[in-house]
């Protein structure tokens, strides 16, 4: 673990993750990005998607959902400010499926709805589903 750094994933409600890791891959608004140790000082916003975290090169990636937020790197210390985030095994698939359906119906019906909001809801649902490996390619 020579090239490790501290990764913290926090939401307004609580600290989700706080450990030494080797690499994290995050869905930046300008494209997916990976952060490893000794990354330069950096800040970006995140879009809804999957966070992948690896504690060691020998390990597999752990997956967390992220419904948007920020990533901030400073002095080999990475902080992710997520609006909401869950480990893959914490995700309520049923609920995410329902949310997706609801959002899709709203977008189709086009009746006096907040299109932006429905789209965001859809993206959040898709981010969660993607995290659990549901519908990998959509």
């Amino acid at each position: 673990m020579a090239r490790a750094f501290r990764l913290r994933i926090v939401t307004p409600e609580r600290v989700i993750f706080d450990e030494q890791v080797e690499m994290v891959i995050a869905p930046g608004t300008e494209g997916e990005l990976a952060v490893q140790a000794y990354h330069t000082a950096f800040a970006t916003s995140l879009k809804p998607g999957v966070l992948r975290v690896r504690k060691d090169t020998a390990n597999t990636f752990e997956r967390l959902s992220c419904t948007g937020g920020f990533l901030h790197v400073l002095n080999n210390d990475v902080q992710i400010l997520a609006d909401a985030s869950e480990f893959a095994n914490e995700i309520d698939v049923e609920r995410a499926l329902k949310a997706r359906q609801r959002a899709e119906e709203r977008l189709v019906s086009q009746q006096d709805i907040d299109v932006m909001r429905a789209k965001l809801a859809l993206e959040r649902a898709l981010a969660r589903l993607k995290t659990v490996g549901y519908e990998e390619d959509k």
Partner: protein
Amino acid sequence: MQGMRDIKRRIRSVKSTEQITRAMKMVAAAKLKSAERLVNESRPYSRTMREVFQNIMARAESLEHPLLKVRNGNKACYVVITADRGLCGGFNTNIARLAIEHSPNSEKVFLPIGRKGRDYLAFRGNQLMNQGYLAGDEPDIHLVQNVVLDLIKRYQNEEFDTVYLVYSRYVSPLTQEPRVVKLLPVDVEPEEDNKGTTHTEHMYEPSPDKLLDALIPRYLISQVYRGLVENHAGELGARMTAMDNATKNAEEMIESLTLQYNRARQAAITQEIAEVVGGAEALR
């Protein structure tokens, strides 16, 4: 002196009140623990959020952003967070009063979160933005998100020129401190306890001004949410103290009533003896 039976009845009534206040105190104490945990767990987010925000602001000083610009208008909106329930001493009143007394020269509209604050403000004829919201049993992040996004929209429509948040800071279970925080226009006061983190040059993606678009709403959400969380803990702390006092008062009252009761009893016995003796005396 009151009759024995009356005193006995009063003792019984005070005792049942005491049981209730004692139970309420215990419930508040139990809930306070989880509320305190919430305060601690929500701290890293708001702290980091502020750090990131300050960092970007330090870099982006020349930036023009509608939510940063100070306007000259006189209309202010106060988001007043209180509890839904009373029986917690002066907790709610202190917050609402602070909101009313703050900067008396501006034209104010209130947005209450929490029933007690709404009732207090409405009763005194203050203008409310809408029906207000309930604080709920647990701080609700979705509620905060909706409120903040709505506020930003109204702010941009120039319904008001400043937005303040009024809530009670949670210092300890015994102390809550009502305070006013300015939400909009956003001004980031330099950190007092700057832990030697000189502002390092950052790379930003996308550009700092675009980043602000995403950052400001979240910054506000984290502030309001934090207010809600601290207020929730403060409410429980205040209730615990209030109910503890009530229980103590009830105990005191029972004590003095018991004393009175015993005196009355003794007096009755003495009188009875005197009567018996007097009767015997007369028969002689």
